[in-house]
């Protein structure tokens, strides 16, 4: 049963962390051999939202096959419309009900699961994990994004009440969100302890007051909110034959992400799952982007540093930002964190982005041009990103025009 009102697509935003280039680089920085993306590859996106990431990946990798699925019809329709508007022939949107066991075709090199598990039933969770286990190529990468227990455990009971009210709302659909938020505000003003004695809940309620009602319906009134922990997700992916590599959100791998006094207790934790559990308690992230590899393939420090040294980064922000590419100055020796953390910091801050191996910064493709036109048509002057083939991804549309010109767009 759905609440009254029109849920917006789950996410209209582009996620740079979910592109093949980014995931491949993250894998390398964490010391594992990245998948070979020089050849034809298959990218599966479960939870494609409004299709921005899916279609960017297809446009900047016209040689790849992209397959997309989402639980919500609104997401599938939006993804399909953007694909059609951009004339992308290499995107298949699975519009039938349910998740096919073969994920629509051949083995996948990359499977991205974007915010699907958070709201999924136990049954769908099993289907997704089984699909990864059956369809991810050995050496392939799976990235799973989800709302964390540490971020949402206190909010979940409030959301459950919101959804309970929404499902039984019989009044004017346009008043649904106002009615639900009104109830919460009455409760808070009257001193309901769960809303007044938990700072995280209070902050979230404050945010809700300024959130677009369509987003509130999509994010909080339509599905269950079932946050997960890293131990749960990594345990399930391990059953599917995948090992945790690191976070696709590169800043998570930097020491600065946790209070200094806790760095030792986190880094010396006696198991990877415990380390991530402590890290989450220390940093309290609202979401995680966990990267897994089918079959571990660790690189030696010199091997990794050499591979990092072959990366070419394009500077997008700051005084060096002119769209030119330069190699990372990697040390040869046994100091693995050095160059890896340098690249992490540059990419995480948005200052730099790696080039797709073998591509030149000025590479332009017809597919990317058509997608950028379609994004502009969808969003008008406020289009959030432009697809950049050389980067294998997209950059904010507000990027310096000089940089965009050097990157072959606009």
């Amino acid at each position, binding site marked *: 049963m759905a609440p009254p009102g029109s849920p917006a697509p789950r996410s209209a935003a582009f996620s740079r962390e979910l592109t093949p280039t980014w995931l491949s680089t993250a894998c390398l920085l964490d010391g594992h051999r990245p998948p070979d993306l020089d050849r034809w590859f298959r990218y599966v996106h479960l939870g494609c939202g409004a299709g921005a990431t899916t279609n960017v990946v297809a446009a900047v990798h016209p040689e790849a096959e992209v397959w997309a699925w989402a639980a919500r019809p609104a997401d599938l329709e939006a993804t399909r419309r953007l694909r059609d508007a951009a004339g992308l022939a290499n995107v298949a949107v699975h519009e039938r009900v349910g998740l096919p066991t073969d994920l629509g075709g051949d083995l996948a090199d990359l499977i991205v699961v974007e915010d699907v598990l958070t709201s999924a039933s136990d049954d769908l969770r099993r289907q997704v994990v089984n699909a990864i286990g059956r369809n991810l190529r050995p050496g392939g990468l799976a990235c799973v994004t989800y709302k964390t227990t540490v971020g949402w455990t206190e909010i979940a009971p409030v959301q459950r009440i919101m959804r309970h009210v929404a499902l039984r709302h019989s009044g004017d659909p346009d008043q649904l969100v106002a009615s639900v938020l009104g109830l919460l505000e009455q409760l808070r003003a009257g001193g309901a302890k769960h809303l007044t004695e938990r700072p995280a809940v209070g902050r979230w309620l404050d945010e809700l007051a300024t959130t677009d009602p369509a987003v509130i319906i999509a994010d909080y009134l339509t599905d269950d909110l079932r946050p997960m922990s890293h131990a749960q997700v990594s345990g399930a992916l391990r059953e599917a034959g995948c090992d945790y590599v690191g976070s696709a959100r590169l800043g998570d791998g930097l020491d600065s992400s946790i209070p200094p006094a806790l760095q030792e207790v986190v880094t010396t934790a006696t198991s990877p799952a415990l380390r991530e559990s402590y890290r989450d308690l*220390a940093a309290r992230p609202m979401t995680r982007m966990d990267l897994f590899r089918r079959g571990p393939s660790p690189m030696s420090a010199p091997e990794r540093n050499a591979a990092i040294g072959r990366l070419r980064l394009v500077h997008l922000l700051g005084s060096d930002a002119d769209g030119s590419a330069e190699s990372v100055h990697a040390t040869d020796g046994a100091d693995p964190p050095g160059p890896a953390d340098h690249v992490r910091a540059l990419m995480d801050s948005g200052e730099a982005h790696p080039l797709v191996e073998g591509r030149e910064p000025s590479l332009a493709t017809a597919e990317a041009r058509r997608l950028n036109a379609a994004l502009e048509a969808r969003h008008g002057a406020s289009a959030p990103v432009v697809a950049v083939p050389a980067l294998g991804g997209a950059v904010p549309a507000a990027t310096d025009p000089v940089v965009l010109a050097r990157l072959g767009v606009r």
Partner: protein
Amino acid sequence: MIPAQGASAPAAGWRDGYVVDVPYIEPITSELCPAWFSMACVLNGQPPIDRSRTLVWAELGSGSGLSACMVAAANDGVEVWGCDFNPAHVERARSLAAKAGLAHCTFDEASFEDVARDDRIGPTEVDVVVVHGVYSWVSSQNQQHIVEFIRRRLRPGGLAYISYEVPTGWASMVPIAEAMRLHTEADPRRLDLAFPEAVDAIHGLAEGGARYFPLGPHESTQLASLGHADVRYAVHEYLGSHFRPLMFDEVAEAMASARCSHIGSVNATDHLKSYWAPPALQAILAGTPDPQLSQMLQDLIVQRPLRRDLFRRGLAPSDALSQEGWLRALEVTGLGKEVRDGATVGVAVGSVTLDAAYYRPLVDLLAGAPLRIEDLIAHRSELTVPDAAATMSMLVGGSYAAPVAPRLPGGSSVASAGRLNRAFIHENRDGADHRSLIAPATGSAIGSEYVEMLALGAFWDGMEPDPAALSQQVLQTLAAQRRQIMDDGLLVPEPVEALTIIERRVRGGLERLRGLFASLAIR
């Protein structure tokens, strides 16, 4: 297979994610008895349990079996069956039932899946199902098995009691519990030995500025108490793989699938609507026609950590006249507790201070004989029947009184309770730590101090009721156990001083034996 929310790594072997290498503590929950459940039904507008025929009482996840043995020993006309998947628990429960000669109390080693699927295990039809301290610690599959057992076995008109932890009071403990479990999993030692370090690590994170802290108020209290908690309790509470607090609607919907409707809480004062919320929020609850939403809002308002819900398979027709009849049939007996100035009673919204001038005379009356609604009205003529019932609830909620259990002609509860009490005391001599005596008058248990139990045991074994001699006997037993007396929270190592304290307690015990315990049929 991805685990359900709250679970993580698959559990090894037969453990199925539960703690089995450390036996659970042996608590007696005195409210888990027919008389108390009957009272809860009546206070919430439903008929009492029908005691005109043998009552079949089933406990799923019966642990060490103490509460089940209590029901079997202290109540006439009851058949008790318990099951647990931990063989150590079942062995212990059977042993206790055998020591007390409880012929109508059996235990099976069986999982929830076993009993849900195999009708040959346990009674075919039951009147009451008790699921205490289990439901929010088991996997969602096992929750379904529990509900399936209730669907298949609970008699129409039967009761199902489920206690569970609620996110409004426990949510922020979930990641903490998981971190502690991961810590102990990486430690080769037994869980109770590894647990303190896991707790220290969490405290270290909090003190080091981890952004997850502070926890919610109830969870903060729990975390602070972990350092000195009984580790047997703590490892079961926190280290199971499936720990997940549950919202009321989840449980109510599951129970609806077993055709069971929510009656109310077994907490004596929870039916008093005026205490459901502070005044500023009562209008919201009053204007909420949806009973599920009303319960969830109450939990949110008071940050309730634990629910103890009673469901009925089919709601009985109920009108004002029959409800009044059920209320008038309620009877409570005194528990020997005095009303002190400033005494409080727990209610949904927190606690309320009793008006000693109002309650003290009632408690004095209770010292003489059990009370019914008409006795209260006779004493306070301004009371209506509902007012008198509310007063009775406050007396029970404050542990000044307990509902009376019916005793049947030719019943054997006094003798069987006596045997179970002696078994407790003998086990205490061997180092156990029972702190309750079984009371046939209430069909449940009453707290008893350790020294008092040892003294009563010596008396029941044939010693004269001479306080000095009994005290010497108690002192010898304690010395053999290498135990010392505590007084006002401090150890008393000096023997002369210890003997003085023991003698004071022995005299008190003998006095209670002649007075209160006699009225509760403890002998």
